């Protein structure tokens, strides 16, 4: 979530799902919310019942569109052109320029008035590039993106980009400027180098006509959206945005979300009821998996993963370069030391660098896509898969399968035998005894399929879309040999410790000294998930007394904490806040503070200081949420304040008394306390690898040249062009159609939990391709005809579902057809179909290395594939 992190300080949804019901306008873009988040969509319907306008912008007319007031069709991958058009419309509108609300909000709470370095050059000047582009390194040097005379540390650990990596000490020194004065600004917004003026120049080309030309959205519809947004913003009204993987699955995904974040800043919609950005997550606990995290480039709680490519040679140096002088992250040493204490217990001490040297350093991009390439190349010999089905969900599935066939061993923990566990005898190439392979008889990978327990068969917590931890109890015992993932990891750890118990080799010390003392229950020695959550919450060391707030964490080793942002979830030995289920009654505040626990510190709307005006008064009675109580000298309201609770609105740091660190360097009007300057970043000086302001680039595979700039694609995009992962060139006549892939309500992702359930499988029993009737007519394809869809990576067959819900687009004077395919299907289970990700390529967003499954190109023809065994495999 680097986009929300870079803009607001934390990579998570800013609001709570149920708060969407308070919105006057809901925009759903990059999400098919009704289909993929049907439960959350009830709150959109509640907002509608109260009179809100609902907008859906999407390449396809979906079940979400059917419930909206405005449906804006946009070509897959053109979102930034559309969003940039909105930004341009807003900042040039009468309303925005003349309503004092907007000026007060943006000047105080965002960096719109901040002055950027004089040598900054914008994409509008450099034909799609920003200053600092290093063509030989395919990356930016972001020195010129900094605030004038300062160096601004990123808020992100996961995408840490130091402005001057070549000379970290110079950067550290320049960062100290933040402790001596507020960043330079021009509150009149006239300075040509202030963010507002840069923003104006950057988006000047994003006119309604250009929006239509690039995205295909009719100008009239676009203007209707823009007016609706403006009309539902201000003191009395707020609007919310909901997005999901329809934005993240692009090579420009991070910048799409950034564009929405800018719009929400400009409209004064962050930190307020009925406002915010709801990042709808792809699975039930994906938020948890980034918090805790399962990502390779972060330690728990968004702490930076030690890296061989950064100045992290020892603990002191690591802490020095990773601790920003101002903002909440100034507390970083407390969190990392408490984490190391939790991991290594009494073996960690100040003298031995808290055992920092034991943490492996990353040496490259180790995320899933490069990992699959490394497997294909034989660099990785063994693979543990827990809740993953990469043959279906991984991109360029044939390459993935080729890699799996190279492995020596693979462990798959699943509830059913999935495609990944059965690829060696059931994939099309494995079954083709005369084919190029890998054929079944040649595959030597040893595969262990271990039966996994389902959620109802184990206890634990989910962290959902809105950062809410909800505990669930075990309902039934798992059958037979099925075990929970926690059981598996715990016993794997125990056996490793046993294996190395007598080793004298120093490299085995981390395993020998890992604290792994969770109590177990029963004959199967099921570890206590409760004890794990207590450790995640944190406690004093060595007494193990639960702590209530992360403000109690110390950098002297007297506290241990697994995930600092979760502190408060288990504040007392007898109180698991995540298990609490007390809703507010209709006359209550409606924030439901006793229903589960939302990180950080049970705050439901983040940055809620912004729900009050500069003086700390509610913007309006209708949108009352948090306010400054002058008598008690504290912030109060319906939620827990996401601000220093007794910092007055008129507080000004007195720099004449010496340097100010942490949030003391922020004034009383700085709601975004994670960032170095306490403001929301409309302009991102550091933390992102591709742009300080969202810019329209075409998807890596596009039928058209970029109508806006000479620069075709996102400049630092991650590409791996090779014989087994080829890309289509721009406008390749062999692959003239845009294809977008997606999920259906009826199935869940790789669909192992759904394709094996008869009452779900019958609802969407086969794969299909949605095709607009205009294209079907050209190709003489009738409904339910078999068709072959192909890319340079591979070809598959499917049935045609001809529907007007897909439409042709007129892009830059040309008619572009787009087709769509749900990607759930495979050869296992009751609902089957060819693997759609055979078509897609391995390619990545520069910040996240997330693929571009939402927009690439393909060809299609009527007919079927010649296969030894014709048709869709049935089991």
């Amino acid at each position: 979530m680097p986009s929300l992190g870079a803009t607001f300080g934390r990579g998570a949804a800013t609001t709570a799902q149920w708060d969407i019901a308070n919105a006057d306008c809901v925009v759903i873009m990059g999400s098919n919310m009704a289909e993929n988040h049907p439960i959350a969509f009830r709150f959109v319907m509640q907002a509608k019942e109260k009179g809100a306008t609902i907008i859906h912008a999407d390449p396809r007319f979906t079940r979400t569109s059917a419930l909206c007031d405005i449906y804006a069709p946009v070509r897959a991958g053109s979102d930034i052109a559309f969003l940039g058009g909105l930004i341009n419309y807003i900042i040039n509108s009468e309303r925005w320029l003349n309503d004092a609300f907007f000026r007060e909000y943006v000047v105080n709470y965002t960096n719109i008035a901040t002055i950027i370095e004089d040598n900054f050059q914008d994409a509008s000047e450099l034909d799609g590039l920003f200053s600092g582009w290093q063509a030989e390194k395919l990356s930016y040097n972001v020195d010129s993106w900094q605030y004038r005379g300062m160096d601004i540390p990123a808020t992100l650990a996961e995408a840490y980009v130091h402005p001057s990596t070549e000379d970290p000490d110079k950067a550290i020194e320049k960062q100290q400027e933040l402790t001596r004065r507020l960043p330079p600004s021009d509150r009149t917004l006239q300075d040509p180098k202030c963010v507002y003026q840069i923003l104006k120049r950057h988006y000047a080309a994003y006119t309604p006509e250009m929006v239509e030309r690039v995205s295909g959205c009719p100008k009239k519809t676009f203007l209707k959206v823009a007016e609706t947004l403006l009309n539902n913003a201000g003191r009395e009204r707020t609007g919310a945005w909901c997005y999901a993987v329809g934005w993240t699955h692009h090579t420009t995904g991070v910048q799409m979300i950034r564009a929405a974040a800018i719009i929400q800043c400009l409209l004064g919609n962050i930190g307020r009821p009925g406002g915010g950005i709801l990042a709808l997550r792809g699975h039930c606990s994906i938020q948890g998996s980034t918090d805790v995290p399962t990502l390779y480039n972060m330690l728990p709680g968004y702490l930076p993963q030690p890296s061989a490519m950064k100045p992290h040679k020892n603990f002191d140096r690591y802490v020095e370069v990773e601790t920003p002088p101002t903002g909440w992250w100034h507390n970083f040493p407390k969190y990392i030391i408490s984490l190391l204490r939790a991991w290594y217990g009494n073996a960690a001490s100040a003298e031995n660098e808290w055992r920092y040297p034991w943490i492996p350093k990353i040496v490259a991009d180790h995320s899933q896509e490069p990992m699959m390439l490394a497997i294909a190349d034989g660099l990785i010999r063994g693979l543990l898969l827990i809740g993953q089905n990469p043959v279906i969900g991984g991109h360029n599935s044939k390459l993935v399968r080729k890699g799996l066939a190279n492995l020596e061993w693979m462990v798959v923990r699943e509830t059913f035998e999935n495609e990944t566990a059965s690829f060696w005898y059931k994939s099309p190439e494995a079954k083709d005894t005369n084919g190029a392979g890998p054929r079944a008889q040649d595959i030597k990978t040893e595969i262990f399929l271990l039966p996994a327990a389902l959620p109802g068969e184990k206890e634990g917590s989910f962290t959902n879309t809105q950062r809410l931890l909800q505990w669930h109890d075990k309902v039934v015992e798992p059958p037979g040999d099925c075990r929970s993932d926690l059981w598996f990891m715990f016993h794997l750890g125990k056996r490793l410790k046993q294996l190395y118990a007598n080793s004298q080799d120093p490299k085995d010390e981390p395993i020998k000294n890992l604290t792994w003392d969770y109590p177990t229950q029963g004959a199967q020695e099921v570890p206590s998930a409760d004890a794990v959550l207590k450790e995640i919450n944190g406690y004093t060391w060595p007494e193990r007394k639960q702590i209530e707030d992360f403000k109690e964490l110390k950098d002297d080793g007297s506290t241990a904490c697994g995930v600092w942002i979760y502190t408060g979830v288990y504040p007392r030995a007898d109180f698991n806040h995540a298990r609490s289920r007390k809703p507010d009654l209709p006359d209550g505040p409606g924030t439901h503070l006793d229903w589960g626990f939302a990180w950080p510190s049970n705050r439901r709307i983040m940055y809620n200081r912004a729900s009050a005006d500069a003086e700390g008064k509610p913007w309006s009675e209708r949108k009352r949420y948090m306010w400054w109580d002058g008598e008690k000298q504290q912030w109060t309201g319906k939620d827990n304040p996401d601000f220093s609770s007794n910092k007055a609105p008129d507080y000004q740091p007195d720099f004449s008394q010496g340097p100010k660190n942490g949030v003391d360097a922020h004034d009383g009007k700085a709601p975004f306390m994670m960032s170095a300057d306490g403001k929301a970043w409309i302009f991102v000086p550091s933390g992102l690898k591709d742009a300080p302001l969202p810019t329209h680039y075409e998807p890596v595979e596009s039928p058209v040249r970029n109508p806006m700039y000479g620069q075709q694609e996102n400049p630092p995009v991650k590409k791996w062009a090779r014989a087994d992962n080829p890309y289509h060139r721009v406008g390749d006549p062999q692959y003239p159609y845009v294809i977008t892939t997606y999920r259906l309500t009826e199935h869940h992702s790789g669909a192992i939990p759904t394709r094996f359930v008869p009452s779900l499988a019958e609802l969407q029993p086969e794969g299909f391709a949605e095709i607009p009737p205009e294209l079907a007519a050209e190709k003489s394809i009738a409904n339910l005809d078999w068709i072959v869809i192909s890319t340079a990576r591979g070809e598959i067959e499917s049935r045609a579902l001809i529907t007007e819900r897909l439409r042709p687009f007129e892009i830059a004077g040309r008619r572009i057809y787009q087709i769509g395919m749900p990607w759930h299907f495979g050869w296992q289970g009751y609902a089957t179909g060819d693997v759609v990700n055979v078509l897609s390529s391995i390619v990545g967003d520069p910040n996240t290395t997330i693929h571009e499954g939402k927009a690439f190109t393909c060809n299609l023809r009527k007919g079927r594939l010649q296969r030894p065994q014709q048709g869709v495999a049935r089991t």
Partner: protein
Amino acid sequence: MSVHPRAREYTESLLPGVIPQEAELTAGTRIEPGRSYGFFTDTTLCIGCKACEVACKEWNELPAEEFKLTGDSYDNTGALSATTWRHVSFIEKLKDANGDRATELAPFQSNWLMMSDVCKHCSPAPCLESCPTGALFRTEFDTVVVQQDICNGCGYCVPACPFGVVEVNVPDGKAHKCTLCYDRLKGGLEPACAKACPTDSIQFGEISALHDRARKRVESLHAQGRSDAYLYGAPDTLGATNGINRLNAFFLLTDRPEVYNLPPQPSLPSRRVLPGLLSGLATMAAIAITAIVALAGE
């Protein structure tokens, strides 16, 4: 629906037993014998998620249909049957009056219609009227249920139902259809489909309360420009015709009933008996007279 005050009494996930009158918490209504209950299905709130179909099959332990793509939009179960008691139909009508794909849409559901169909639990009920064995009966909750242990499989109820709801199942030769979760109602639980519906498109309740709520909903929709919204199956509306006073499962629709595969004017079979008999007698008489005349002429 707002949170019921009783929700505060049940804050534990592991409970000693079933919550008494749980429907009061989940649907705002107590379930007591002697009163009339039913469904108000508001299509303008339906998102086509099919949670109702799945909840129904799971609770009632109904088997899946054939795993086959129909090509009919996102509807792959086709119709109500002996084993599908909730069925969501999908009707695509993307184009506006000018023949263009619409971008400015009517509030709430439009352009891709989705409707969760179910047994109407008619009052009076045609199927019940035609049943010779008494297998079909009216329950203490004013719903209509088939008792398979009494059903002789004659199938009279099948053509009697004007909605095509009842079907005789091949494996057991008995009639099957929605029971409005008779077993759940007895336990104070709202029916599975209504409980699973995330957007309250399916609302369960006492029928008179549902009628009031539905009429207000129509008024509200009209005020918001949805002049096409109307009730189907409430007293004195389409669907409650020709001797059927009301459908205990009634609907809010925005297009003609036929579009949703509903008859515009369903009727009780007994209403069809007399005209059928009279026309038969008239035909007989006409033949007789013709014959007499013909013979007399010779």
